């Protein structure tokens, strides 16, 4: 099986000027044709020249770290959506780098403090002012005859 001029030219356009990089199936045919017909070398050189021109096309690398900017832009948006109480606490735990045991101890002590506080607040016998006491004090105030100022 051989490759004629037309086929060789088509393959050049399809796969490029470097015949050694052509797909396996047609590479050997291309190299064989190139060795057998020296005039094909001119087509290869012409293709190389054309590819050099194509490679002069302008290209600019992205400015700075594109990936970093995208990741940073995605972070707050998703967090707002996904924020849950559990996630919030786990973020706080991570932020303060406390172990689970220490956090449990802190949480339990806080809960106990609250319970004790409420118990004292509701039962408060000393701070309680009865209506009778209140009236007496009001009466004392109204009957006060000393200097006001």
């Amino acid at each position: 099986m051989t490759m004629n001029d037309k086929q060789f030219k088509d393959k050049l356009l399809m796969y490029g000027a470097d015949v050694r990089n052509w797909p396996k199936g047609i590479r050997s045919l291309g190299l064989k044709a190139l060795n057998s017909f020296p005039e094909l070398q001119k087509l290869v050189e012409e293709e190389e020249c054309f590819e050099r021109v194509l490679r002069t096309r302008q290209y600019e690398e992205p400015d700075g770290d594109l990936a970093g900017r995208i990741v940073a832009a995605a972070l707050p948006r998703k967090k707002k959506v996904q924020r849950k109480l559990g996630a919030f606490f786990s973020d706080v735990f991570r932020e303060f780098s406390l172990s689970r045991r220490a956090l449990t101890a802190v949480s339990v002590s806080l809960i106990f403090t609250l319970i004790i506080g409420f118990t004292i607040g509701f039962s408060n016998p000393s701070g309680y002012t009865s209506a009778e006491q209140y009236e007496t004090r009001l009466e004392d105030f109204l009957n006060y005859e000393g200097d006001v100022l």
Partner: protein
Amino acid sequence: MAEIVGPGDGRQRDAFSLDHGGRQISVDMDVKLLHLEDESLLCRIQEGSHEAFAILVDRHSNRFYRIAYRLVSSRDDAEDIVQEMFLKLWGRPNLWDPGKGAKFTTWFYRIIINRCFDHHKKKKLINVPEDIEFADENPGQDVLFDMHQKQAVLERFIRELPERQQQAVNLCFYEGLSNNEAAQIIGVKVKALQSLVMRAKTTLKYKIKQYLGGGPR
């Protein structure tokens, strides 16, 4: 990029640093994620994993930027398009349907390319002065031409190609993708893709030769 910082809480994790305008963003991530394929990362993203998203972006943002740049010829626009599309993926990860069987890169290339053409339609073509002197005393010796002029003309020639031919040239020649992958991205058969590449190159060769003063062959 990835520097292993130790087992920490028992899992091996990587410090994944991203530079954001001089500000370092550190994404602490599970090393296992780094070795996952794109499609598995996408499943994690659908579960809300920002780490998986960061890896996917870091792995592919440059390649998608390259094709976007080739299609819009502007660094800022190309960056905006890539960022916009990745953020869209992050906001709506279920847009990716693993059931359809397409590779992530194939699917996302298609998205980026479509977005670039939409963007391009909204903008006018780059104006290249028609009176630029291209003829040379030694046809073929293009090295003497002003680089910017040459680049502008080449850009215009490529832009004048039909959309599919542009895609074929950009994906196969500039991005070096296989014919198979490029065909899948454009949504044509391999034979059709080869035909697109051939027609595009033939047209470009003809136009370049004309400008270089060699005339059609």
